[in-house]
């Protein structure tokens, strides 16, 4: 291969395949200029690595935090459509449609005047007033509200349980951390006093 600053950069950046790397290695043995250039690139890379990664100042909020939770509306909507209420709603809507259709298309009942004295027949009985569309809509709304409330209540129970579990785990973690601190402190004291515990002495203490 001939001298190529770009290939040398790829070499340092580990973007070359095995064969290409071997070719560069062979070339470097006989080319002082490329060796010097490679040295400069490596020093540059080493300098860049002197800039260490920083610890994140604060852990990222997890999904169970409110910031990750969907909005109330999204929760209600997804809860509703992702639950059994969907089937109930669809059935209710279908049934309502059938009732409305039936009410609109059914012919009006014809009154038959009997010759004989009036005998109570079904024809004399006043038909129940047809259910208006507004009423049907109202019933649907009520059913939907109930389904949504039930779904939300169930979710709230789950959330409360999760929060409870989390608090418990946090408490356990805090206790473990405190214990660790105490142990570290003890160990530090021992070291300062010139005593280095061996595994045998630790077993003895235990």
């Amino acid at each position: 291969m001939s001298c190529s600053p770009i290939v040398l950069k790829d070499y340092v950046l580990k973007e070359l395949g095995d064969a290409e790397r071997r070719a560069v290695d062979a070339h470097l043995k006989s080319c002082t200029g490329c060796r010097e250039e490679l040295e400069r690139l490596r020093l540059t890379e080493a300098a860049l690595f002197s800039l260490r990664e920083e610890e994140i100042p604060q852990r990222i909020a997890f999904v169970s935090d409110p910031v990750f939770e969907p909005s109330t509306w999204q929760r209600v909507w997804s809860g509703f459509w992702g639950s059994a209420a969907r089937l109930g709603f669809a059935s209710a809507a279908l049934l309502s449609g059938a009732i409305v259709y039936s009410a609109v298309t059914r012919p009006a009942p014809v009154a038959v005047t009997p010759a004989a004295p009036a005998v109570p027949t079904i024809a004399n009985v006043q038909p129940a007033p047809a259910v208006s569309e507004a009423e049907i809509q109202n019933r649907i709304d009520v059913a939907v509200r109930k389904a949504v409330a039930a779904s939300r209540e169930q979710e709230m129970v789950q959330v409360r349980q999760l929060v409870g579990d989390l608090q418990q785990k946090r408490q356990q973690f805090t206790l473990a951390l405190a214990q660790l601190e105490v142990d570290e402190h003890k160990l530090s004291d021992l070291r300062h006093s010139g005593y280095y515990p061996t595994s045998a002495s630790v077993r003895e203490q235990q």
Partner: protein
Amino acid sequence: MIFRAVEDGDLIRQAARGSVEAYNLLVSRWEKRVYNYLLRITGNREDALDLTQDVFLKAYQNLRKLDDPGRFAPWLYRIAHNEAYSMFRKRRPETDVDDLEPEATETGITVGGSAVFPVELSLAVASALERLSPDQREAVVLKVYQGFKFEEMAEILACPVSTVKSRLYTAFDLLKTELAPVSARGVS
């Protein structure tokens, strides 16, 4: 090499099915890297932290759209890149994003003191990185600090591989001029 009992791909699949615990674990594995990437391109800790938060929120909301869990890293960094540039545009809408520079500080990004590398070298690096264009700096950060391949960088930056290489090579030439002599003094 750190052995991981559960691979990222498994966590992604579980998280996509709604497992909060799986996503929490995934976040804990990636938050430091994403934060440092954003810190290098914004030069501001508060912005980096806020953006990291936004990135993981957006990633969670769109996790189901990730077809191949093996491409999680470039996908996540693509979100991070978009979030950062969206912030740049909001702050200075009349300015071309290519002209944007990270917030200048007296000492650049502060680094933790290290006995192995002199502080002067770290400061020189921070200063040299600040003098690069935003595109060049981001290419260096993705390659050197985050270890992405050219193809992955092209995916993150939504540009051809040739553009990625061009930015990186130019950046390296500029950094070499400034840092190689300083680094040589530090090493010797």
